């Protein structure tokens, strides 16, 4: 177990490297995690690794005391009973509405001429909330990966997706039309651990914020 006495859920994927670097600097040993691509549970370090979108699930259930994941995950899974403790600042990305490059914007055209918009996304909830808030009728198409393909093949008029640098959008001939939200890594805690392991949770939060 690490010096905070907490089980920490760590996201695999793009945030993994920075997360492990930070944990190392505050005294949670991560060498074992770095050396081992396939193992998921590291008892000595008190670390468990998983897809970013599963972090909130494990933390809500108390299978991990605390976790690190993107704000986008928390927004998409709003209603999960976890405590959002700190904005860790790294892993910045943005949720955007994008469509095929060109003027006029094919999404605008669809809205003007057909009265509604077909939109592909992995983030159904964020997209639904956004279009409701901005008063536009849309038909959402849930896809599980390579969202950029959807408008290129005529499946939809636009996409709602996460972008860090915009490279993937650009390489597929898409342009950002609207920014929906900004996301960074967040520290979250299980509500029971937040009360009952308060000293450890606060110490971890302070250490990560001071890093």
């Amino acid at each position, binding site marked *: 177990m690490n010096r905070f006495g907490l089980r920490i859920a760590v996201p695999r994927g793009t945030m993994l490297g920075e997360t492990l670097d930070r944990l190392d600097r505050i005294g949670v040993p991560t060498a074992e995690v770095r050396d081992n691509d396939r193992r998921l549970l590291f008892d000595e370090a008190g670390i468990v690794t998983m897809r970013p979108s599963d972090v909130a699930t494990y933390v809500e259930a*108390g*299978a991990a005391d605390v976790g690190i994941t993107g704000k986008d995950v928390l927004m998409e899974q709003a209603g999960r009973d976890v405590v959002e403790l700190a904005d860790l600042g790294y892993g910045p990305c943005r949720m955007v509405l994008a469509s095929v490059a060109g003027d006029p914007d094919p999404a605008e055209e669809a809205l003007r001429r057909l009265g509604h918009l077909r939109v592909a996304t992995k983030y159904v909830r964020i997209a639904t909330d956004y279009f409701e808030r901005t008063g536009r009728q849309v038909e959402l198409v849930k896809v599980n990966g390579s969202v950029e393909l959807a408008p290129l093949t005529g499946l939809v008029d636009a996409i709602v997706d996460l972008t860090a640098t915009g490279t993937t959008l650009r390489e597929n001939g898409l342009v950002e039309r609207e920014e929906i939200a900004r996301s960074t890594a967040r520290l979250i805690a299980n509500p029971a651990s937040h009360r009952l392991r308060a000293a450890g949770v606060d110490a971890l939060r302070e250490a990560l914020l001071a890093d």
Partner: protein
Amino acid sequence: MTLPIPSGTRDVLPDEMRERDGVLDALRRTYRDHGYGEVSTPAVEYASVLERAGVDPDGAARPRFHTVDERGQTLVLRSDMTVPIARLVGSRFADAPTPIRLSYTANCYRGVTPGRGDAREVLQSGIELCGAPAPAGTVEALTVLVAALRAVGLDGGRVAVGDAAFFPGLLEGLDVAPDARDRVLHELATRDHVGLRRELDAALAPDVAARLAEVAGRRGGPEIVAETGDAQIDRAAAGLRELVAGLAPDVVDHVILDLGLTRRLGYYTGAVFEVFAPGIGHPIGGGGRYDDLLGRLGRDLPAVGFALDVDAVHTALVGTARGSWRQVGWDAPPGQPAPIPGEDA
């Protein structure tokens, strides 16, 4: 042939039933010993009656199952017992001397979010104490709650106690506009401390915002509501301070005060409880003060109560059969100091 039952419901077979009855016997004995009389109310009620309670239409306590009776009236399956008992007190105990002490064990019905393992049918067991204002009424409810945890064998259980009036009072004292106040309270209710800091920074001077964000993160023993010399915070914390002062030592050691804990159900007006058990990551019960609810249902009395999720209590008792990874127990057993984080064990 295996015929399905709706998701979020389940059958209970004899082994489980026997254990569950043991839990219920212990709970009922506790309520009885403290002078509470058990009541039963219909599972279906008129929607128009329950709506008088003003339950948040988006909240978890909102009734989910509706039907229409022979005369075209909308009926709902109750989603908790607090509102039906408030109706009962207004209608059947209209002249009864106070305080009125009632207990119940009943199935309640909720909507579920797919893929979350939520229950549609929840067996709740608890008490309602009507006509006993704070702090004495709240002290009694917490005392019965801790006694109930002990009686079922969950002495390791803990009750997080906050005050739904704490932050609203603090913000009012600082002249925060109503819409900004609602945004702050929303962030608190959704336990988003990042959003809370953002809304506080938008509404208040930087040093005040920082102080309030720090206060919202405070949780621990009676020391967190001790007088600090900050008049506004001391005034807002007076309710919790009086409450703690009234609790017996063997109740206080089961209580964790949380200044950031606020109401998640629309009707709470004062103290709010969330009950936790070792090895269970979510609350196994909850409750609080609802001083305005009974007035809306016919008899204006201050009231307080709690409900335990009987199956969650049972799961906590069965313990940690689910994976050795899950750590059982709290930081430190009562009476022992918590380990100091930062020092290598």
